């Protein structure tokens, strides 16, 4: 008997929540790769070895490589070979889900859940941090002046979505 694996996006059933000052959107489950380097200062050497994916700092010597397109096993092997001298890859695409939060009130919504200073001076575009949103651990990245991306463990994605929706409710 043959069985086909079907991919079910965990937030696939959620329509984007568009309120007056804030928008909550489930992002495509493309790829989320964790990069681990032996040397924490390997960062600059990584960028030239990766494609169009977004490189976001996670911890000293660790980064998340994130993109909207799913990777084929060949893509992944190629990337592994290019990165080999600098960093190792742990594929987390199956385990992490991304949520986008944007709009003039996005910062105010996040400030209800995290103590990270989200001021543009302390947390500029391109900056990222692993933190707690309420009781849920999430990786927070600023992708624009008024837009953020949250990367969360798959099993917590729906809870985080519901929490964010509630936190955003006053900005309707």
């Amino acid at each position, binding site marked *: 008997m043959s069985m086909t694996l079907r991919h079910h996006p965990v937030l696939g059933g959620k329509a984007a929540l568009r309120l007056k000052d804030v928008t909550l959107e489930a992002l495509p489950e493309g790829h989320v790769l964790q990069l681990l380097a032996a040397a924490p200062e390997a960062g600059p050497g990584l960028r030239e070895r990766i494609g169009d994916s977004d490189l976001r700092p*996670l*911890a*000293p010597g660790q980064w998340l490589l994130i993109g909207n397109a799913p990777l084929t096993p060949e893509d992944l092997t190629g990337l592994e070979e290019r990165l080999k001298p600098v960093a190792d890859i742990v594929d987390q695409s199956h385990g992490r889900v991304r949520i986008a939060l944007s709009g003039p009130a996005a910062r105010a919504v996040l400030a209800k859940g995290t*103590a*990270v*200073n989200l001021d543009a001076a*302390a947390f500029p575009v391109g900056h990222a*941090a*692993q*933190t*707690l949103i309420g009781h849920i*651990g999430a990786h927070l990245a600023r992708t624009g002046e008024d837009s953020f991306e949250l990367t969360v463990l798959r099993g917590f994605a729906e809870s985080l979505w519901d929490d964010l929706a509630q936190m955003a409710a006053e900005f309707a």
Partner: protein
Amino acid sequence: MASLIACPHCGRRPKEEFTVKGAALARPEPQAGADAWFDHVYLRDNPRGPYQEFWHHTSGCRRWLVVTRDTATHEVEEARDAALWNRETAR
């Protein structure tokens, strides 16, 4: 948020993001004997004043830190990466 810990990697974060393991003590030699090991595993001074503890930034960078704080005022004097601390206090 009550207490902020200045993680050397992440900046100031609330204590809720951390897990406290306990006193930061140098490990005895494996052959140090039962008394030294009993002391290391079970006996603590519980001082009033500066105290060094291992803190894990569980919900942040996931690095172990050594936090020096005052047990009476809860003022945090210093937080450093445990790997650095370990290198400096190495026997």
